[in-house]
């Protein structure tokens, strides 16, 4: 059974049909790409998956549970984490705090025990600190733990955002244009990172990307979206040679 199953997903903004009859199936530990020309509705799909928008039709089933229409912070609790197209870190907090934020919704200590600091709460906090440091070490960022997030270079900020999302213990990680603004070398590193994350954390990853090279390299399956419509879905080779996809990106030949 697939991990995420999207059926006939539709959203209207007034008279505008932003996404129409969209279908998507992502299996366990799959690397999935969602591509399409600008304005095709990719981010809108993301926003529906993460609860920012409520779809006007269709269903989203994740891990056997309907998740369409529930609040963003509850989606995270269902083990879906995301990154943002324009990086949204907590800039004035340290790198370590940013990662610990991923664990926070899983914390068991209540408000009162946080204020008086019960032994249990202190232990929990220490455990979170430890886990966050471990995660940072995996990302080779342990030396930057006490640095403010906004002072990191761009590429590191992207990595930190991914680390923070992983701290939220997802089964499905959504990456919104992770290679935006990266140079070719950084993109190559990112390709490695994405693959490695899938193998290390045993999770599925859905990524939206403009960088064709990255998508074709990394993804095992691709869905193409154009003007809110599902255009094609399949393996990278199939997509590469699909005439409808070529038309959507480059226009009709000799019209």
């Amino acid at each position: 059974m697939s991990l995420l199953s999207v059926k006939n997903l539709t959203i209207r903004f007034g008279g505008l049909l932003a996404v129409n009859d969209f279908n998507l199936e992502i299996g366990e530990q799959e690397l999935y790409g969602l591509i399409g020309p600008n304005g095709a509705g990719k981010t809108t799909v993301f926003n529906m998956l993460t609860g920012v928008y409520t779809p006007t039709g269709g269903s989203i089933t994740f891990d056997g549970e309907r998740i369409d229409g529930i609040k963003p912070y509850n989606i995270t609790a269902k083990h879906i984490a995301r990154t943002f197209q324009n990086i949204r870190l907590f800039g004035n907090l340290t790198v370590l705090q940013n990662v610990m934020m991923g664990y926070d919704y899983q914390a068991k200590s209540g408000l009162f025990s946080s204020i008086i600091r019960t032994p249990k709460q202190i232990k929990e906090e220490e455990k979170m600190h430890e886990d966050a440091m471990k995660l940072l070490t995996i990302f080779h960022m342990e030396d930057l733990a006490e640095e403010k997030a906004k002072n990191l270079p761009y590429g590191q900020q992207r990595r930190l955002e991914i680390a923070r999302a992983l701290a939220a213990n997802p089964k499905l990680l959504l990456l919104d244009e992770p290679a935006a603004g990266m140079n070719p070398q950084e993109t190559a590193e990112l390709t490695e990172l994405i693959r490695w994350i899938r193998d290390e954390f045993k999770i599925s990853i859905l990524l939206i990307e403009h960088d064709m090279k990255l998508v074709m390299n990394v993804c095992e399956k691709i869905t193409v979206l154009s003007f809110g419509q599902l255009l094609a879905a399949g393996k990278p080779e199939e997509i590469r040679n699909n005439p409808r996809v070529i038309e959507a990106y480059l226009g009709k030949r000799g019209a």
Partner: protein
Amino acid sequence: MKETYKKYIKVVIGLIVAYAVFQILFQTGMINSYYNRIIRQIGIFLISALGLNLILGFTGQFTLGHAAFMSIGAYTSAILTRNFGVPFLLALIAAAFTAAVLAIIIGYPILRLTGDYLAICTLGFGEIVKVFIQNVDYLGGARGISGIENKSGFTVIFVLAALCFAIIMNLIHHSSKGRAILSVKEDEIAAQAMGINTTKYKIIAFAIGCGMAGLAGGLFAHFSQFIDPKSFDFSKSFELMTYVVLGGMGSLSGTVIGTSILIALPEWLRGLSDVVKEYRMLIYAIMLVSMMLFRPQGIMGTKEITVAGLKNFFGKIKRIFRSSSTSVNKGKEA
């Protein structure tokens, strides 16, 4: 975990020593009753300002109605002790509790607003509270309530201020709830994506902060022995805000410094020559304006005074002295 408790024991010992020093100074008369009164006043407004810093500095919610919650606390406790003979401490708890509950009730709808809208809403709430009290005879109307017992001694204020400081410190700097509150200020959308119910945390912070305002109000009523609606109008809210902003939004030790300076300074200037006395509020204003021009993040920014930080600071000064003295020596040798 042991380290955490060791640290707490040190903090408690430090507080006891500070308390003892103050008491000795009071008893021997080195601090006279006039200064004693100013110190108590600082303590009371510090409690309120700490609460405001939680809302404004840590959660990033722009509220202009903080004094209204002080008045709610002040009236609650004054009525309880004066008309019902409730013990002072119990009345204080009731004051904080009432303010916090009201904060939750009005916070639930208005904390969905942000920025200017929230500011206007809280400003409006402050005015409503003021007009309401003015028009209710039971609360003394515009005449206010007089003849409240003088019960806010130094000990009570000191203990409660330390307690409020500790509550915010523990909450913000050592807990997942605190990080959630900080994340609301940083980026609400990202916070929600990390599984944080931002509205809930805004209300929590608002309730705790306003509860502290209520507590401070209760102390104030039993300190000035007279309260009227005008003691807590919106210029008081602004005053509280200047304490927080001058000290540094998001710094608790900054709030202590800001409150102390801004309450003590006008009093200190009053004692100087006649010219200064005449223009003291002008000096006060100029200080605030230049502060905003040259150090907009406030005295402490978002940093806290820590033992390690102080050591570092004095170490630097020492080094500067040493290097200057060695350079003098070198000069002599040459």
